[in-house]
Structure formats: C-alpha cells, structure tokens
C-alpha cells in the first residue's frame, strides 16, 4: 500500500550532498513529496527532512539506498504520532478593500497566523503548523485569491528527550 513516510536524514554538510540525495530519488524512481534542509546542532552537518511515498518495500529501499551514500550519517523514520511536524508558508492574498482585509485578518487570528506585509492590494500572511492546518487555512484563503504561495517543506523533530538519531 502506498503511504507517506517522513524521514530525517543526517548528512555531512558538503557540496553536492543535496544533489546526491535528490539524484538518488530520481535514479531509482522514488518519490519526493517534500524536502527541507538546513544546518543542525552539529557543526559540519545538516539535517534533511524528507517526505516520500511508497509501500513498505519501497521505503526499505529508500532508507537503505540513502544509507549507502558516503555522506549520509543516519536515516531515521519519523512517526508523526511521536514527533512535532511543522511547515511554514508565506501566502500573498488578494485584498483590495478594507472589508476584505479585516475578514482575512480574522481568519489569520483564528489560525494563529500573522500578517507580515501589507500592500495596497495584498496582505502577506505567515502561517506555521502541520500540513493539515496549513491546508485548512489556505482553503479558507482560496476564495479571496492566493496571488503567490511559498512553502518551506515539512520539518520534524521528536517529542520529549529522545533525539532523532535515537529513533
């Protein structure tokens, strides 16, 4: 059965490492639904949060093939029930009148999103949350007109004292 799987991949911060990871997915016809990367607590290393889809067999191959890359230190499968999952989205919403602006701001407040920029005809909203929350908010914004949308991709960390590399 095809399912979504979230992986946290600790890699050496070297040139080309993202190309190696993304190239591997293309080469072996694995899917990347989302990918986010940034430096982590260890100097010289980065952590990639990656969402892929496929059955158990595909997931096993994804993990093993990733682990084969020389610059990959560890691949951890993140169980959504035991992790905090967050994504950040910036959405530029069409807001030509005062009435529309205040309506949008009310929605933003309900979703604990914030207005980060205002223009004569637009409001730019920043929203952080799990993908469901972001989807719900964007669904509410659709009727107003989403002029532009930028998303970071999903990031994730384990709950409690347990570290990602202990998963």
């Amino acid at each position, binding site marked *: 059965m095809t399912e979504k799987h979230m992986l946290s991949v600790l*890699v*050496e911060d070297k*040139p*080309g490492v993202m*190309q*190696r990871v993304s*190239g*591997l997915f293309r*080469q072996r016809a694995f899917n990347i639904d989302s990918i986010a990367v940034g430096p982590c607590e260890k100097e010289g290393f980065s952590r990639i949060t990656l969402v892929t889809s496929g059955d158990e*067999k595909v997931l*096993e*191959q994804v993990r*093993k*093939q990733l*682990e*084969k*890359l*020389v*610059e*990959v*230190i560890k691949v951890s499968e993140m169980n959504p029930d035991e992790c905090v999952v967050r994504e950040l989205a910036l959405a530029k919403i069409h807001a030509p009148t005062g009435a529309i602006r205040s309506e949008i701001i009310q929605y933003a407040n309900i979703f604990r999103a914030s207005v980060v920029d205002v223009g004569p005809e637009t409001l730019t909203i920043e929203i952080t949350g799990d993908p469901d929350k972001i989807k719900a908010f964007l669904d509410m914004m659709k009727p107003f007109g989403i002029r532009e949308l930028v998303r970071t991709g999903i990031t994730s960390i384990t709950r409690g004292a347990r570290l990602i590399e202990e998963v």
Partner: protein
Amino acid sequence: MVVMRGGKAIIEGLKREGVKVAFGLPGGAVIELYDAIYDETDIRHILVRHEQCAAHAADGYARASGEVGVCIATSGPGATNLTTGIATAYMDSSPIVAITGNVVRPLIGKDAFQEIDATGITMPITKHNFRLTDPRDIPYTIKAAFQIAKSGRPGPVHIDFPRDVIQAEAEMDFPERIELPGYKPTLKGNFAQIKKAAELLANAERPVIMAGGGAVHSNATKELIQLAEMLGAPIITPLMGKSCVPESHPLVLGLVGMHGRKPSNFAVSEADVLLGVGTRFSDRSTGAVAYFSTESKKIHIDIDPAEIGKNVPVDVPIVGDARLVLQDLIKILEKMALKKKTAWIEKIEQWKKEFPPKYDYPDAIPLKPQQVMKEVMEVLGEDDIVTTEVGQCQMWAGHYLTRNKIRTFISSGGLGTMGFGFPAAMGAKVARPESNVVDIAGDGSFLMVCQDLATVVENNIPVVVLILDNRALGMVRQWQMLFFDKRYSAVDFRAQPDFVKLAEAFGARGELVERPGEVAPALKEAFDSGKPTVINVIVDRDECVFPMIPPGAKMTEMIG
C-alpha cells in the same frame, strides 16, 4: 607537513596507496599532473588511445589482481569518454579510482574550453566522487577515494581536480588513517541471523548455493566448497560469480540464468533452501522474478544491505563479508547433525548426465562457436585469464569455458559493455604478466576499441584477442531470429575489415582460422609468441546460444 605542488601530491598519494600502474591519456587540464608523472619511476603510466580503454583497463587490472585500478583523463571529452568504463565498474562492483582534470577554478561554470560538470555526470555511476577546491585536500581525498573504492562493496571512485589545484603549491599533510563518519561497512554477520540460516540449511532436503561477484571479492572459494561438501549442496553461479569456485568440482554446476546450464536452472528451481552469497539476483540470473526459485526459503548474505530484498524477497538476511559470514556459518553447522542428501545429489547427477554442454562439431565449416571453445580449453592453463566482450561471445565463454581458479574470468556482467574485453585483457595482463590472457571477442565488440591495439603493441602487453567473427551483432540477431520472425534489422555487417591486416597494421600478429582443429594451435602459438595477437575465427552466423530462457518465462521453460 610538506610543501609541494598539487600534481606531485596526487602522485605521492597514489604511491602511498601502493599504486604501481595507471592507464591514461593527457590533455590540457591534466598537463601539470603529467609533468609530475614525467619524473616518476615507481608508477608505470600506460598511454591508451581512447579514455574508455583506460577505464576498462583499470577495471581489468582490478578484477585480475583484487587491487584498485587507476585511470587518468583530462577534462571535458576525456572525462565523458571515461564514463562508460566507470559505469561498467560500478555495475560490477569493481574498485577503480578515476582521476580527471577540470578547468581552473575561476572558469568553473563559465562553459570554458573542455569544461564539463564531470562529477555531476559520474555521481550516479560511482560509489562516491569528489571535486576538489583546495589543493590541501589532495592527500585526504586520495586516501578516502582508495578506502571507499576497495572496502565494503567495492566500486569506482572519481576525483575531479581543477587545473589550478594541480598547479598550486600548498602544505600537504598525508594522513595515515582517516575517518569517514557516514561510511562503515558491516563485515561481521549477525550471529542470531547466521544461526537461523544454519538451522534452515541443516534441515534442507534440496539446498542450493548461488555465489556471485561478492564471493570473488571476498575470496570465499575455500569456504564455499567446504560448505557445499558439508551440506551436499550444489553451487551455481551467475556470470559475476564464475571462477569463484572451481568449475571442475562435482558440486559446481556452472552458470545460472538466461543462458545458464540446465542443471543449474533446474536445481535453483527445485531448491527448498537457497543460499545467495554476494549476488544481487539480477534479472539475467533469475529470469522472471515472480517464478524464480518459488519453492525455496531464501538466505541472502551480502555486504551491501540495500541488495537484500531488492530484487527477491528474503527469509533470512545476513549483512556482512561473504567469507567471514560463511566461516561463522560453517562453525555452527559443524556442531549440528546434517542430513544426507542422497536423493538430491542423485537428481543433480542425473541432470548433469542428461544435459552436458555439447562441444563437438569437428566437421562443421564455418566453425561452431562451441567447437572453438573446446579448442580454447585445450590450450588454456589454470592460471590463464579469460576476458570477454558482450553478447553471444560472452555467453559462449561463460557457458562453455571451465574456469577453476578465482579471478580467471572477467566479463562485463551488469552494464554489458561491448568493447570491455580487450582493454580489460590489457589491464589483466599488466596485473598478472605471468598468466596468458585471452579476450573472447565478437567482431562487433572488438571494432569498438580496436584502436588500442596500438597501446598493447607499444607497451609490449601480449594479450590475445580471439574473435568469434560472425559478421553480425550476434545476440541481437539471435533475438531477431527467435522472436522477430528473422527480420534482421541493422545486425548484419556487410563491410567488416580484414582483422588479420588490421592487427598487422598496428604491428600485432594476425591469424585467420576457418577450420576445426586450427583454433588450438593458433592460440598456443599466440601465447608462445609473447606478442599481441588477433585470431580471427570465422564462425557460423546462425548458431544460437542455447539454452535460453525466453524473456518473461520461467527458468524451467528453457528453449534449445
């Protein structure tokens, strides 16, 4: 800490890794490296005529010796010409280090003369690759490249040096040991898993051992034979496993797969426990995977965890070095009561009697390839090395030539690269000059790389190329004959060269053989001559390689 130029540091790094030979062809981006080679006496540089041959020769050197092979090329077309050879080594897990130059750092990304993103190209066909940006990284990188190439599951590593990195003078620190935080191959198998495997094998009625290229890499000959004898289990080999066990041994059944021997294909199909050792169960060795060895519980030993369960579902996975795991397995089995497998052994003997390879066509003109193989066998010594091109010639050699010593059969199994055998023979001969080396070639394959006859003549590397000349791309032709109503599309050559004259034009010996009984003397004379020789054997164009599992069919549904 020593101050030296990048080029000198590369050579020093190679020497510290024990490199004795490098195959290469210079160009602008590596001219300073070649300037350093000019003074070098410890490393023999062999100048090839095409970079593809440098990579294949390094590969052949690696496969014949077990050491890392080295090839060098310039930027741009030099690098792209290497790629077929690198990909060939990658698919067959052969340890080579490929060195390329690139344009100077300030020109990178400017589409400069002979600039190409060489590491971008080789990323999916190398175990790992490096592009240097700092000359001080040279010693570490070369150490790392060799460590990665030869350890774990071996494979090619590519290093790309911008020209100004090679030119630059810098403080070089040559480390004795390095740490790669994300690279730790598992050598020792998990004891509990090995115990499970032992229990399955001890209770098996019809065990079969399938030993692939990993068994060659880990040098597991002794352990495989010991285990086979303990268990009464036949050993079958996919092409990459050929020569890992002596094929004259009564329990060794030979090649398995699409053009395997019938006893091998029958045995694996009827097995109740199948032990895979360093094999990746490739499509060419399993036939249609849904029908592959359906009655067996499967144990799979491989040093690469990603190979386990990739192609074939496995009951007992064991990650580790084939030889070390087999040693542990044997220790456990020695304490267990093992069943006598009289019925199984009798059945196998029956298959062997019923389906022996047929060699004898003493009267056929044009010659049958089987007869040619028979005559080759008459001359070939135990330590002599066979390389092959790809296609029918490869399958004739794989199926019909008995090899009894490890690393005496070298062939492009995974990538199936036509043009591999001849340069690989050159590399093998350089690695093991005391052995005779013969490339079993086709006329199609050999023409792809024949320019390097100049290299073997110039460097006095006396290899023999034995062409099974059918004036066609035989294997494609065979498929068109069997599955496409003999619609021979673009497979028949109408203007092949005179291979004898071709050889002589390069200063090599050339021989034409058209009659049965003349192959063996010609080959013996070629070996004795100590000169590079091309023996052109005119063979029957319509002879097909049988048996054959038709595409998509079960292993037991072989034709021919």
